[in-house]
């Protein structure tokens, strides 16, 4: 199994999907992200790890300009996706977010039926030509998010009536249904049991065939299991970034080492 992973890693292309240079984020006077440079590769799972409050979510939200919705938030620096500056005036954040999907740290299903939750993105972007196609998209998305068997009999029930873990998988299905090129996942498994976690990890691995996935996680094991690249954040700095194997077996920075071995965070 492990050998296979390494084999796959070699196969991966080295095209850069997201390139960030000198990114600074301020919440009012709070300097939350300090001068971060990072290159995120296409068809790769990149894990962001680091102690709570170090800015993982904040940086993730820079990648699809979700920080625009926070009044006090200010982003500086360059972030390019496919060579295009996403903070350029000509870029429509709405189009960008259709391309860069997001699963949030807290499950946030809409107060609509399960079906309508998943169909929301495809409907907005006109991904389905007819009802049958939409049904298919919804079913596929729910299957990929490992929740189909649990909800197939109650697609018309409200999404808010599901358990926390089911809601999170519903949100994953919702994001997947829009067919993004990049999927940003903020602790997608924090509310899931081991079985669902394994299924989501399988999904992430599958998504890697076509997309670039960025996942924030507090579980070292998860980062090691699913990601090829790992970035370690600490107090708003990107301390270390590299091959997941290297980061976990042979970290360069003493802060990375002490975090991984459980001494900070």
């Amino acid at each position: 199994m492990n050998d296979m992973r390494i084999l796959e890693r070699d196969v991966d292309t080295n095209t850069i999907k997201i390139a960030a240079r000198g990114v600074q984020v301020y919440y009012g006077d709070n300097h939350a992200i300090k001068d971060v440079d990072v290159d995120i590769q296409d068809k790769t799972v990149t894990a962001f790890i680091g102690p709570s409050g170090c800015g993982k979510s904040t940086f993730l939200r820079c990648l699809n300009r979700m920080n625009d919705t926070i009044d006090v938030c200010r982003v500086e620096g360059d972030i390019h996706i496919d060579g295009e500056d996403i903070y350029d005036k000509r870029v429509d954040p709405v189009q960008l977010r259709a391309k860069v999907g997001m699963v949030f740290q807290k499950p946030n299903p809409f107060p609509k039926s399960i079906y309508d939750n998943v169909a929301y993105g495809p409907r907005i972007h006109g991904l389905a030509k007819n009802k049958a196609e939409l049904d298919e998209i919804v079913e596929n998305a729910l299957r990929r998010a490992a929740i189909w068997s649990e909800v197939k009999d109650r697609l018309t029930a409200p999404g808010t009536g599901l358990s926390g873990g089911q809601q999170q998988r519903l949100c994953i299905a919702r994001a997947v249904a829009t067919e993004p090129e990049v999927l940003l996942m903020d602790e997608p498994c924090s509310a899931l049991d081991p079985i669902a976690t394994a299924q989501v990890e399988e999904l992430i691995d599958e998504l890697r065939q076509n997309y670039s996935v960025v996942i924030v996680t507090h579980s070292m094991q998860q980062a090691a299991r699913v990601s090829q690249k790992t970035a370690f954040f600490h107090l708003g700095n990107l301390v270390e970034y590299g091959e997941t194997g290297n980061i976990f077996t042979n970290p360069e920075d003493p802060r990375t080492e002490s975090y991984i071995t459980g001494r900070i965070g």
Partner: protein
Amino acid sequence: MALGLTGYVVLAIILLTVAAFFMARSRAKSTAGGDIRLLHSLPNYYGYNAAMFAAVPAFGVLMIWLLAQPMIIENSVFKLIPERIVSEGSSRGLVMSDVRRVAEGLDIAVAQGALTDDEADNIRTEFKDVRSILGSVGVALGSNVEPEVLYAAQQYRAKSETGTFWMSVAVVALAALGAALAIFVTNADFRARNTVERGALALLILAASLAILTTVGIVLSMLFESINFFRLHPWTDFFFGGSWAPNFRGDSDLSILPLLWGTLYISVIALLVAVPIGLFAAIYLSEYAGPKTRSAAKPLLEILAGIPTIVYGLFALLTVGPALVSIFGRGEAGLLGVDWMSGATAVLTAGLVMGIMLIPFVSSLSDDIINAVPQSMRDGSFGLGATHSETIRQVVLPAALPGIVGAVLLAASRAIGETMIVVLGAGAIAKFSLNPLEAMTTITTRIVSQLTGDTDFASPETLVAFALGLTLFVLTLGLNVLALYIVRKYREQYE
């Protein structure tokens, strides 16, 4: 100005209360031997406790006595009025009010020195012109004072005097007793703090129950008058009749239906104006406006809510009505060249202005409700590449819908109960018509008109006002309960 006996009683209670406060406090200190740490409560609490015992029962009894005494005395004096002087077309109640007036007049005459106390008690109409004496001190009477009335008035005064005397004795004694008791029980172990706490609780409960009791009282009085009405007038005509034609000589048609129709028609127009505008304003303010615009626009919008409704009524009568007439009326001279509207008062006039009045009501409630929709919900939608207006239409509004429905129902209940705008803007003709350019009338305007002018509270034409009021009350109460239920249910969803 000299105080009456009651004034002195109040003064005495206050003095006793203050004295009790200081005495209890110093007694508490001295039982602790000067070391207040030995006391169960801080010294002031012993003072408050004693003050409470002195003041509360005394003032309570004083108040009840003041309310009950006139009733009891009136009842006993009532019997003194012989059947003979209750003249044709008048009633005992009217004679009784004469008695009260003469009694008051005598009081004033004594106070101003026109009569001595003795004279006032013994004066006879046979010997003196009581009417002119009372007239000279400013109490004008409609007719000459009958000897029986004067006698009854004198009895009234005498009984009031004895009553007030005994009241003073009882109340002051009670205050002294309460103070003494509280001071007596004061010692280091007495839990004054807890007693004061209970006193505070009782005060709060009293305030809460007063509010509820007055509501109950209002409803009951409406109910009794309505029952009187239904004794005089068939309820089938009131609820199911087809016309409203009050006739003060009797035999009127008093059906609520044409009025209800006018009320609902005007309210619907008002809501058609207020709901879209109010809702859109709320959406703009809560979703798009920056903090600066918001802090400026919100108070401005809420100023609308502070305008007295009579001003809106004037606006309807003087501005909106004529403007509508110049559009829809005046034939060739009008804007459309039609002659559909003849007068300024019309359903449309009242509806439009009432709608304007309701805008801030709808907008500020909806604004709160929209703000209560969690940001994470919007984030979820934005994160899927939805635009702001798609997010509002498909996520925020559906999430806020129950709350908004509640807000609209509250606005509807205000529209139904609104009076001044319709009095001035809607007209006075009760009828069923679909034409919004015609004058119509509402329940509230009819209540006003049935109760103004010469009224006789024994005729169905007057009493119908209470039945109308009660129906209106039930209607708005139902709407409010429904609205609050919906709003509350919606709140639970996010808490």
